[in-house]
């Protein structure tokens, strides 16, 4: 079971989030209510990432397990973060993270009409999020295999 997917850009903005529920049809994309939660997640991952690098240089955070859920993260050199929350049955999701990165490339980066570096916008607006239906659909396919 995948709980949710989060994508953060290099300006620490959450540019995509999607909550998966048992019932597919009620899953929530880019919800406003999640904004503060996104910030919390970013903060947590950020601190852990910084700490793990500090302890052993060159080291990167990949997964993080708690009692109830597991977090899988992919960090690119351009500081794009892809974070997946799953239950404990998923031990390793890095192939899917890579796939989502590829989808991000295909539907967002390669779409010249979609702005990708949103430094100017101090507060991430709703419109700055990834809303492409084909992207969402493709992501669903990857995550609900």
């Amino acid at each position, binding site marked *: 079971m995948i709980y949710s997917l989060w994508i953060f850009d*290099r300006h620490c903005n959450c540019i995509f989030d999607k909550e998966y529920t048992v019932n597919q049809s009620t899953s929530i994309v880019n919800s406003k209510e999640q904004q503060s939660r996104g910030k919390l997640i970013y903060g947590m991952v950020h601190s852990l990432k910084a700490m793990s690098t500090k302890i052993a240089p060159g080291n990167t955070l990949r997964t993080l397990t708690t009692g109830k859920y597991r977090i899988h993260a992919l960090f690119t050199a351009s500081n*794009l973060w892809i974070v997946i929350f799953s239950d404990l049955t998923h031990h390793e999701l*890095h192939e899917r993270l890579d796939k989502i990165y590829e989808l991000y490339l295909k539907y967002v980066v390669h779409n010249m009409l979609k702005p990708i*570096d949103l430094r100017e916008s101090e507060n991430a607006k709703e419109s700055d999020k990834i809303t492409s239906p084909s992207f969402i659909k493709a992501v669903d396919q990857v995550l609900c295999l």
Partner: protein
Amino acid sequence: MNTTTGTSKTASAANTTSLASSKTIKQIGETVWKNRTVKINAELFTLTYGSIVSQLCQDYQRDFKKVNDQLFSMGYNIGIRLIEDFLARTAIPRCDNFVTTSEVISKCAFKIFLNITPHVTNWSNTKNSFSLIFDENPLSDFVELPMDASKELWYSNILCGVLKGALEMVQLDCEVYFVSDVLRGNTQTELRVKLNKVLKDEMPAGED
């Protein structure tokens, strides 16, 4: 709570371990070029770029300074996207120093996107600026600059923009500019990359 870190079996992590030797960088470049790059016809590519430049010259009434700027900003917009593409294909992590960066640019990036490997040379003493020497330049095949342009136009200026944009996305604030170009009658085509500073990763607002 426990965290797993470090090496893993996935492709993206395979390259993480050592970027130290330039041989690996070269290999990455060659493998990606061979297996994961869609090729297009060289003449089509050259003509497409050529028609853009010549159209810009016309649109800006042969104000070549403006044409240079426009090419640069077009390149910048390509660069900030191309870097993601590059990282996804190669899964190269951040470079430890600027020397490694230069190797990655020449042996990997130029190899993958243009199938050329410009020489890295003319390092400054402080190791924060270098030159790329182009023996061949697919952008400028067949090109002869008109007389009035040969003093001012940097025909391949889009490359500077691409590098600038791409490097900025990996937190390297650089100045990128052409020093000489065979099209202008110089003996070689030289592009200078100068590191201004390494930008800090941004922190979430209100975190400090």
